[in-house]
């Protein structure tokens, strides 16, 4: 690990100023992703700005939804009574991530900003445009079993690894950001970006911007929800593919639907067209199959991730069946 300075911020402004004035610095929250990257030599910040003492760890009820502080722990959030009541899909997604120990350290803000798990990104001896722009994409013609089937570019085919973010994008969440230029609010779907020509940029945040909270609006999706995570072992593994499915049912008719996928793109992948195809239809396997077909339009696989073309639609159908409790 490179030598680095460590400062602990007690005021948001101090943290933002420190970060904005020093391109070689990084915020550190739980550290469960950043420290690993530092140990492997993937990220080499000269200065760590510890934000854990900032007052952003509350989970509050607002008039139109929940406000979850960026420093709320993954475990606390997943167990929170209001989250369980109003956004059970989020709780399911959080619990599907990492391990109990990690969830006890990881924060909501850190989780959404965790970086890709692409193995080439993690090994400084390998080419990777995200780590070292211009060095080439190791995965494109390499081992790309975990990689994207949507929204990739020829510069980067990595996927975003967060489970939580898949639920948040499905639930139309918003991110509250505080930066050198003041505060702003981003739709969750606009936080992450596709790789395009700048795969080194994971998000649309500006330098020095601090996430302070995420807002989850109230929704009818409190009952028929399911977060399905397909993984190689029963726990503690990143998703091959995951699906956040939420239905609002009137009898057996779908009044409204939300659908998003993880493990398929550089950002949590909302499936708006597939959602539309569900609305007004009966909650049957045939309806779900059709939604899966719509969802998969435009998908393209590489050498080792062909299976995702089969797994992803299957997972969509399965998640919707589970959400609707259709057997």
């Amino acid at each position: 690990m490179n030598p680095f300075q460590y400062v602990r911020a007690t005021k948001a402004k101090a943290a933002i100023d420190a970060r904005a004035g020093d391109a070689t610095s990084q915020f550190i929250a739980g550290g469960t992703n950043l420290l690993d990257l530092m140990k492997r030599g993937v990220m080499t910040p000269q200065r760590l700005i510890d934000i854990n003492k900032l007052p952003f760890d509350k989970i509050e009820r607002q008039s139109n939804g929940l406000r979850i502080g960026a420093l709320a722990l993954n475990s606390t959030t997943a167990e929170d009574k209001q989250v369980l009541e109003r956004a059970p899909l989020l709780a399911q997604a959080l619990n599907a991530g990492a391990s109990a120990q990690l969830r006890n350290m990881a924060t909501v803000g850190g989780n959404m900003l965790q970086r890709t798990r692409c193995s080439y990104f993690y090994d400084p001896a390998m080419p990777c445009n995200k780590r070292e722009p211009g060095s080439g994409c190791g995965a494109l013609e390499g081992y790309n079993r975990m990689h994207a089937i949507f929204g990739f570019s020829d510069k980067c085919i990595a996927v975003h690894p967060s489970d939580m973010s898949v639920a948040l994008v499905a639930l139309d969440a918003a991110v509250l950001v505080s930066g050198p230029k003041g505060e702003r609010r981003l739709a969750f779907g606009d936080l992450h970006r596709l790789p395009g020509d700048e795969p080194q940029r994971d998000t649309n945040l500006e330098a020095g911007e601090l996430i302070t909270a995420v807002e989850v609006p109230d929704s009818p999706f409190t009952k028929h929800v399911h977060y399905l995570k397909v993984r190689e072992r029963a726990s503690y593994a990143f998703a091959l593919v995951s699906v956040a499915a939420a239905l609002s049912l009137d009898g057996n008719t779908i009044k409204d639907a939300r659908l998003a996928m993880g493990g398929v793109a550089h950002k949590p992948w909302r499936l708006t067209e597939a959602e539309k195809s569900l609305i007004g239809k009966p909650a049957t396997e045939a309806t779900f199959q059709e939604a899966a077909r719509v969802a998969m339009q435009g998908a393209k696989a590489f050498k080792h991730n062909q299976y995702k073309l089969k797994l992803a639609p299957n997972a969509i159908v399965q998640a919707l069946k589970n959400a609707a409790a259709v057997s």
Partner: protein
Amino acid sequence: MNNIAALQDGKAVGDRMSRVDGRLKVTGGAKYSAEYELPGLVHSALVGSTIAKGRITSIDTKAAERAPGVLAVITHLNSPKVPGFAAKSNPDEPPAIGQPLRVFHDEKIYFNDQPVAIVVADTLERARHAARLVKVQYVAEQHQTNFEANKSKGFLPTQAKRNPKSAQNDYTRGQADGYQAAPVKLEAEYVHESEMHNPMELQSIIAHWEAADQLTVYDKVQAVKGTQRAFAKDWGLPEQNVKVIATFVGGAFGNGLHNWPHETAAIIAAKVTGKPVKLMLTREQMFTMVGYRPKTWQRIQMGATKDGKLVGITHESVGQTSTYEEFTESTVQQTRMMYAAPNVSTRYRILGLDVSTPIWMRGPGEATGAFALESAIDEMAHLVGLDPLEFRLRNYTDSDPEKNKPWSTKYLKECFQAGAERIGWSKRQLQPGQLREGDWLIGYGMGVGTFGANRGTAKARAALLADGSVLLQSATTDIGPGTGTAMVQIASDALGLPTDKIRFELGNSLFPQAPSQGGSSTVNTVGSAVNDACLALKKKLQELGGAAFANVQPEQLTLSGGQLGLKANGGPRMSFADLRKANNGQDVEVTTESKPSGDARQNYSMYSFSVHFAEVRVHAMTGEVRVTKMVSCADAGTIVNQKTAGSQMIGGAIGGIGMALHEGAVMDDRFGRYVTKDLADYHVPVHADAPPVEVYFVNKPDPLVDALGTKGIGEIAIIGVAPAITNAIFNATGKRIRELPVTPDKVLLA
């Protein structure tokens, strides 16, 4: 509590005694290799090559040398030459069977991440930071790491070419490829990727030159004596000048059975700096330089009659090795002796690639071979329309068809029966894909394992101390099975002394000679030595006791109650104090050597046997596989401790789940470099993957192996588990996946 109970019925062997070192381990009191705090200790980090083959053209160490806290940066350019390296032949022509990598010897690169420099600094962080500052330039040569592309270059190991009696030679019984004459035939290929041992404890060493010709290492190894010999040879020292300490080993699974480049790197660094140097590998380095179960391709061709009698089996195998050492293992052995096929041919080859050398990993060879053989048996049973258990019974053999000798003991049928009952084999459907619960398909499978009931030669020292306790010592190691506990139990019975009055010490090259802990032979080998040493101690005490004990057999004697006496009531008695007096006030001490009986080994075939039954669920939509129940049954002779032996079986079963479903290191052949090299990318089973594992032991002694009747457990605990699971997957889905690990993508696309 256990101890008292054991004493009352006079038998500690067989008791479920808790580990003698359990408390130390769970309270942090057990000291592992990296945990010795020597005065002046400094830290180090390795720099690994980033090419798989070629030469180093330059190394820039300036920035590293200038970094804070750095004491030395050592490369092939400034390393002291290891005397034992120089004596070897021209580096371009390594001896045929090869030699371990000569670290920092020259500019040649044989595999990716080969250590090219070691940085020594006052703290670990500074050493690791400075290691990143070392800049190395290479001329790369075209490397070969692609197994498939090179498979046809597999060759007969040199040891087989040199020695016609070597078990690595081709083998034929009956007609060569005689399976061809059978009415029902199958041919199938089986592959698994390289699997890393990944014990919890990282490979670590502290190297300390106590004087210019006195080396002490605290080293994570399975053989303290073997390591002592290897380093003495390397450095041209008398063996007694090298001391090797491995009191505790945090798991190894075989990767402590060889000495690796990092050990010599640390010894060199200690020599250069004149300080004790600690080197602990990173998890990523655990993938590249400390051995692994080699990637292996196998083909089975099998023929049977329509009523399910095997006509012939041909088993071919190509296993990966490095270009500088020929690693071999007994991949085809089980095929030669497990079934009563009249025609059997085996052909074993190895393939040298630009990778580091593999090493035995739990169930070495047999676990690989059993995957192919036991899968093919299942496939053939399906072809002839028989239950695979019934098919195995029709081809069961009551003597060894390879060596034409009787088995010393074989209670595999008892295992079959016990396992079938416990797993609920009657629920298994003959046709696959019949059982379903919701979206999960359910299937049952079995796999058989075997491993030689090996026994080596070992010495043990036994001493009656002033406090009335007995101290035993032998230079074995304990990589986790509970060796010390078993030895104390054996000694307790041999001496008639309660277990809490006995201490067994291991893991130190100063102790009497014992082989490495490997090949499931420690209890057979060292247990026999301990037993013999205890009997010898009683004999010596009897002599000290003088005339009163003249007409007594040592076997009749016991040390219970602080005195030497007869097991039966009455007769002569003498207190320990008086015995010591008769010994000039000294500890009464003996050292003995125990060897297996040549006659029994000549006349009998000795093996442990196991069978594993698995119940699996396969998700119809996602291809996920979950093992929901396992039953592992073993014919392993006398079970010294049901608790520790049971844990061994459970650990083996879970390791087998990893082999079947999770483990496999992925190489990017463009770079000749592993892609998956941490525990996030390289999966091993986690707790949620471990189903209830029920263990059954036949627990009947095999007196031909040793006096205690033990046969060995460690390997058979995993051998046959992987095919039990893949066979169950077939039974659940009708999909036969012959490439491990069976991940959801393979199930979906099959």
